[in-house]
């Protein structure tokens, strides 16, 4: 093949050049996915350190200073390194194939947006080996903890965040340009698969709020190094301003993470229900509504900061309003399954678990949105449990489902179904053992982000740690299953792979050729 991708048999140099200089959306998608999985393992290792230390009360394994670095790095690596790049990887692989485009609209920028990421995370992770240690102020890096009281390495952290932000913005611009300009003839907006819809809305959220995060860390940088006082009360600034700026980014960020997950599940559930998605247009409008509302509810993260009662009430009701479009989505998924001829392959299992556990996490979110009750829940393990139900059982479960669902299309080989199901049940049970007890701990008053705890919390913490180790083990099985599939999986050349699958990506041959839709398909 004259223009095919270089393989290892062409020599190592050519093979490495292929990946470094690639502008192919499938190659870049693959790079994103592997990178995010590596970060997932790294962030998971940090989590294992945290749960090992919390296995018993008292200090056993690590020093409290290192514990703080572990909680901070776990959050940062998982949010910015694992979940976000995983969905960008899926977008790269799937969006051109789903809308009948030959590639992404801006392929060179696509290459750049991936290849700066490893540098960002090398810079971030290298701080762990520096004098003073890595960032230790929590993934929300509230000032003045992250300015006046931060270790000197905070400047590396800030630089790393800037690069990640640039990467996300470039990736998003590319997705928007691809979807707006590269759709096949006849592929109107309201015919786009829901995964494409959720991603284009997410991309707009990213372009709007990643610069705000960049602004927040830039202000930190100036406070630390150039004597400004954005967040320093001694110079007339206000630390509460930091929280407002951060959460103005941070709340849309949680939807940036979950909206593509909604999209994935909206592709998978119809396939294994053998019915079209129920309420397609209401799904689109609900996604847009959630994205809009995400901009006007940020202060519900800071009810305890001292707000006027009118502010608390506004943010409380606005937050509760988000349950309406989210409820529309959940009911649409359930209705899609209703009277469908269901089968329970691994992607479907993860998707159903997503719907159940994400809804559960949504309900604890409703509890947290009640301003008066939040005074008690704030900064306890109840919050930790809540956001792991939506981040892990939400985003990570749907990412896992997506990999199992599209992996046969990508590499032309079937994964081991039994191993997939075993992995699902270990992950599902382990996840619930790990995080369900954290609700109880939080309601009983255990604060988050501490290396030690009172004896009354000992039992549930031990249970939680055992669950966390189980969940961690399931990911090793996942990695093995994926490698085994790519290496020795049972070959398949059925373009549809799944008999119930619908969409343009299932019309190209399996495995998907290096270049697809060089001539656009006609969409009726």
């Amino acid at each position, binding site marked *: 093949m004259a223009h095919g991708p270089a393989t290892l048999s062409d020599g190592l140099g050519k093979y490495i050049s292929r990946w470094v200089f690639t502008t192919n959306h499938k190659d870049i998608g693959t790079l994103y996915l592997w990178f995010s999985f590596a970060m997932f393992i790294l962030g998971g290792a940090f989590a294992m350190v945290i749960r090992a230390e919390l296995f018993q009360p008292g200090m056993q394994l690590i020093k409290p200073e290192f514990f703080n670095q572990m909680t901070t790095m776990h959050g940062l690596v998982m949010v910015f390194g694992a979940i976000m790049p995983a969905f960008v990887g899926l977008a790269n692989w799937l969006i051109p194939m789903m809308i009948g485009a030959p590639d992404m609209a801006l392929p060179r920028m696509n290459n750049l947006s991936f290849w700066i990421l490893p540098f960002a995370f090398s810079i971030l992770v290298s701080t762990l080996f520096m004098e003073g240690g890595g960032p230790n102020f929590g993934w929300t890096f509230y000032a003045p903890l992250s300015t006046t009281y931060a270790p000197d390495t905070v400047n590396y952290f800030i630089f790393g965040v800037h690069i990640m932000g640039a990467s996300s913005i470039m990736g998003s611009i590319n997705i928007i340009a691809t979807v707006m300009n590269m759709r096949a003839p006849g592929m109107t907006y309201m015919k786009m698969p829901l995964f494409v819809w959720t991603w284009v809305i997410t991309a707009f959220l990213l*372009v709007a709020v990643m610069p705000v995060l960049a602004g927040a860390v830039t202000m930190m940088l100036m406070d630390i190094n150039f004597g400004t006082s954005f967040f320093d009360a001694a110079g007339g600034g206000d630390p509460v301003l930091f929280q407002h*700026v951060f959460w103005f980014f941070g709340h849309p960020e949680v939807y940036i993470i979950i909206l593509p997950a909604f999209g994935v599940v909206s592709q998978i559930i119809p396939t294994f229900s053998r019915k079209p998605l129920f309420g397609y247009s209401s799904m689109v409008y609900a996604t847009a509504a959630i994205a809009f509302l995400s901009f006007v509810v940020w202060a519900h993260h800071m009810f305890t900061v001292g707000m006027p009662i009118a502010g608390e009430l506004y943010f409380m009701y606005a937050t509760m309003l988000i349950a309406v479009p989210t409820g529309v989505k959940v009911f649409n998924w359930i209705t899609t399954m209703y009277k469908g001829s269901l089968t329970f392959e691994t992607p479907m299992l993860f998707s159903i678990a997503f719907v159940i556990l994400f809804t559960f996490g949504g309900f604890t979110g409703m509890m947290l949105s009640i301003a008066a009750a939040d005074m008690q829940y704030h900064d306890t393990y109840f919050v930790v449990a809540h956001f792991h139900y939506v981040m892990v059982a939400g985003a990570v479960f749907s990412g896992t489902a997506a990999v199992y669902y599209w992996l046969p299309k990508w590499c032309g080989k079937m994964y081991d179904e039994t191993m997939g199901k075993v992995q699902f049940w270990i992950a599902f049970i382990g996840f619930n053992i790990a995080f369900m007890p954290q609700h109880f701990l939080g309601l009983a008053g255990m604060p988050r982000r501490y290396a030690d705890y009172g004896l009354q919390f000992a039992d549930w913490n031990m249970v939680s740690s055992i669950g966390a180790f189980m969940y961690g083990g399931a990911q090793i099985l996942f990695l093995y299953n994926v490698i085994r599939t790519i290496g020795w999986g049972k070959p398949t050349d059925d373009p549809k792979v799944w008999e119930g699958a619908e969409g343009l990506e299932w019309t190209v041959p399996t495995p998907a050729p290096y270049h697809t839709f060089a001539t656009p398909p006609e969409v009726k």
Partner: protein
Amino acid sequence: MSADSKNPLLLAKLVALAAAMFMFAIFVLPPLYDLFCEITGIGGKTDSAYTAVAVEVDRSRDIEVQFVATNNATMPWDFYPVEERVIVHPGEAREVVFYAHNRTSNDMLGQAIPNVLPNNAADYFHKTECFCFNNQPLAAGESAELALVFIVDPDLPASVNTVTLSYTMFDITDRTKVQVSQVQ
């Protein structure tokens, strides 16, 4: 129009959006936040130096003004109000004194940041003279009496009978670059 010719324009628009949001975060949000706090009185920030205007003293109202002094973080000074509370009539100027003592063997620079509670009283608490308008240098072992002259505005909402003025003393010895004089 083909995708190739549409892409540069869309790219320019989206880059402009991202740049605008960055500018918004740095140049618009902080002033907007300050403005919001000033209008609503949230945050308890007081105005800068007030020029007294002749008003009739409202002897029918007694307002209790309480004083709180706190040291920020590792600030080692002794810092407290000489009188913890005074009763004033709206419209009358009153002088009170805070005591500060640098117990260390180093020359230091402090900056007091005021805060007024309740929030709706912040706009009606005027300071004609205040040590907080400048930073306070204290040599090693030195002590000082820091003066404050204030007037409670007669327009103070009728629901407010007690006003609490708190000062937090920050150690700004190492922060010579800060333009502390601009702070009230």
